[in-house]
């Protein structure tokens, strides 16, 4: 079922949680609402679920108006960050809850409930825990039970509020891959909220980046990572170096170097911010004729798949972060304090007005 969100506004006292939000979630997609805390992503999710009502605007499920529909009738499965399992019920009863509370006419028989619950528990690979109580389970197991419970009512839409937020890093990684596989199997339209960009980039079909109650950018993980629509998205998705620059007739000037842009040819001497990802900075030990920034290696993080360098530019105060492969690091034979020359491979410039230009 597709979801259409139109002009949603929500205020809490003086605080604007959502400011005129429009969003379409196509049928069967897994969409991530990504943003820092307080950006309104959870509020939006709760409005889609019907746990919160918007001050203004409307929600449509598959073209049908659902703004005033009660949460009970929306046929949404909701998974909470802190699981919200019923602790006095066994795992089995937790999953069966949604079936047992149905009106007599539509309630499945006991045998049918039994069959369905075990089927769901097998789906989340926890059938062997059916008789345990939630407090006896680990966080990852609890969240999978919460998911099975939400799926038991055969929801048309699955909503997950920071589903892996309370788990430790390893479990988190396993679970999000598992969620992706599960989604590929079930194809339920799903929306999940997260503040973890890595999680969103890895799991989602489409990412909605939010900030201050507004949507900053909507796109596939690759789109939002490679072509951020605003400085905020740039900074929020992955590490980035920010440089003050001037743009003049299609040229961006950062410190001593100038780079030609394929836009802004008519701009005269305008202040702009230039962004370069750490892995888009090339590091040389010799100034091989090209325009480069000079810097001194102030710290080396050599643990991990690549080597991260903290660099102190000679003419600027802000440190620059560069990421190079281990091979390249060995080739350069860098030490702390070494003098290096930097060349940005790929720069994106945002003028004061906020237009974008890949170089």
């Amino acid at each position: 079922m597709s979801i259409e969100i139109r002009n949603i506004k929500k205020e809490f006292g003086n605080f604007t949680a959502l400011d005129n939000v429009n969003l379409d979630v196509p049928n069967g997609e897994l969409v991530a609402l990504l943003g820092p805390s307080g950006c309104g992503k959870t509020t939006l999710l709760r409005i889609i679920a019907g746990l919160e009502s918007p001050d203004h605007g409307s929600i449509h499920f598959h073209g049908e108006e659902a703004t005033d529909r009660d949460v009970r009738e929306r046929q949404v499965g909701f998974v909470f960050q802190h699981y919200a399992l019923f602790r006095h019920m066994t795992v089995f009863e937790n999953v069966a809850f949604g079936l047992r509370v149905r009106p007599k006419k539509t309630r499945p028989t006991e045998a049918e409930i039994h069959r369905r619950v075990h089927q769901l528990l097998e789906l989340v690979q926890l059938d062997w825990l059916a008789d345990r109580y939630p407090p006896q389970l680990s966080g990852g197991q609890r969240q999978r039970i919460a998911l099975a419970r939400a799926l038991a009512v055969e929801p048309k839409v699955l909503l997950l509020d920071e589903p892996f937020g309370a788990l430790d890093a390893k479990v988190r990684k396993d679970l999000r891959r598992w969620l992706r596989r599960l989604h590929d199997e079930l194809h339920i339209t799903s929306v999940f909220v997260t503040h973890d960009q890595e999680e969103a980039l890895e799991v989602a079909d489409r990412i909605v980046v939010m900030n201050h109650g507004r949507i900053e950018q909507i796109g596939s993980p690759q789109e939002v990572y490679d072509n951020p629509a605003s400085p905020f998205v740039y900074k929020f998705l992955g590490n980035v170096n920010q440089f003050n620059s001037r743009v003049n007739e299609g040229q961006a000037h950062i410190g001593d170097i100038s780079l030609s842009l394929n836009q802004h040819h008519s701009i005269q001497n305008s202040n702009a911010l230039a962004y370069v990802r750490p892995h888009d900075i090339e590091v040389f030990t010799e100034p091989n004729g090209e325009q480069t920034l000079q810097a001194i290696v102030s710290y080396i993080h050599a643990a991990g798949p690549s080597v991260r360098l903290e660099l102190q530019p000679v003419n600027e105060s802000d440190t620059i972060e560069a990421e190079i492969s281990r091979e390249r690091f060995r080739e350069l034979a860098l030490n702390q304090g070494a003098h290096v020359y930097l060349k940005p491979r790929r720069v994106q410039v945002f003028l004061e007005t906020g237009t974008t230009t890949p170089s």
Partner: protein
Amino acid sequence: MAKHKQKNVLPGFNLSLGYTLLYLSLIVLIPLSAAFFKTTELTFAEFWHTVTTPRVVASYKLTFGASLFAAIINAIFGLLTAWVLTRYTFPGKKLVDALVDLPFALPTAVAGIALTAVYATNGWLGSILEPHGIKVAFTPLGVVVALTFIGLPFVVRTVQPVLEDLEAETEEAAASLGANRWQTFRRVILPALWPALLTGFALAFARAVGEYGSVIFIAGNMPMVSEITPLIIITKLEQYDYTGATAVAVVMLVISFLLLFAINGLQWWSSRRNSASR
């Protein structure tokens, strides 16, 4: 190999245990056992006769029946009060919250006189109820009213903190799974409140069984009708029938103990069922 002594952050376990035992013995155990010893001055036949005279038996029935009834009323309305105080904001909420504790603070005799004045046939409420054939003051109903009054804070104060800690998310989860309000209350909220509710009920009941001051004013103390057991004990004491008084006291003690034991068992059972678990 030498056994390592368990180290605690706070020392003094032995001292505090010894003190606790001594204190409990002096304050609780010795006076209670004195009642038993005094009673042994009677032969069993005399004892049995004293504690089974119709007037005394009627008083047991009134005391325990009215206490149970009052505790049940308190459990229901105390839960409701706690619910309103935690879930809603309204003007004067703080005042209502403070009012709940009043029965704790008020001298019981004051409560008794106040209730009697209000419920007597010429009182504010009594004069309204009288024409409808409802007599409160000087009847067993009056006893229930007084016991309900003094037991109110127990349920409210035990349920309130648990209700405050209850995650709103579990209720939202229930609603998103299609449960209606009653189902959510019955299947999700009530099981979580049950242990606290039972504790409050037990405390209110125990307090009501031992209540004397507020009851004797409103009860009218008619033998066989509205005479409570504590009053019988006092009456016997006033007649210098010390062994008779302790005999009745012992019976009360045993019944109270058994009832509290049963309630505790129920509590243990329900909390174990909840937290097979925690």
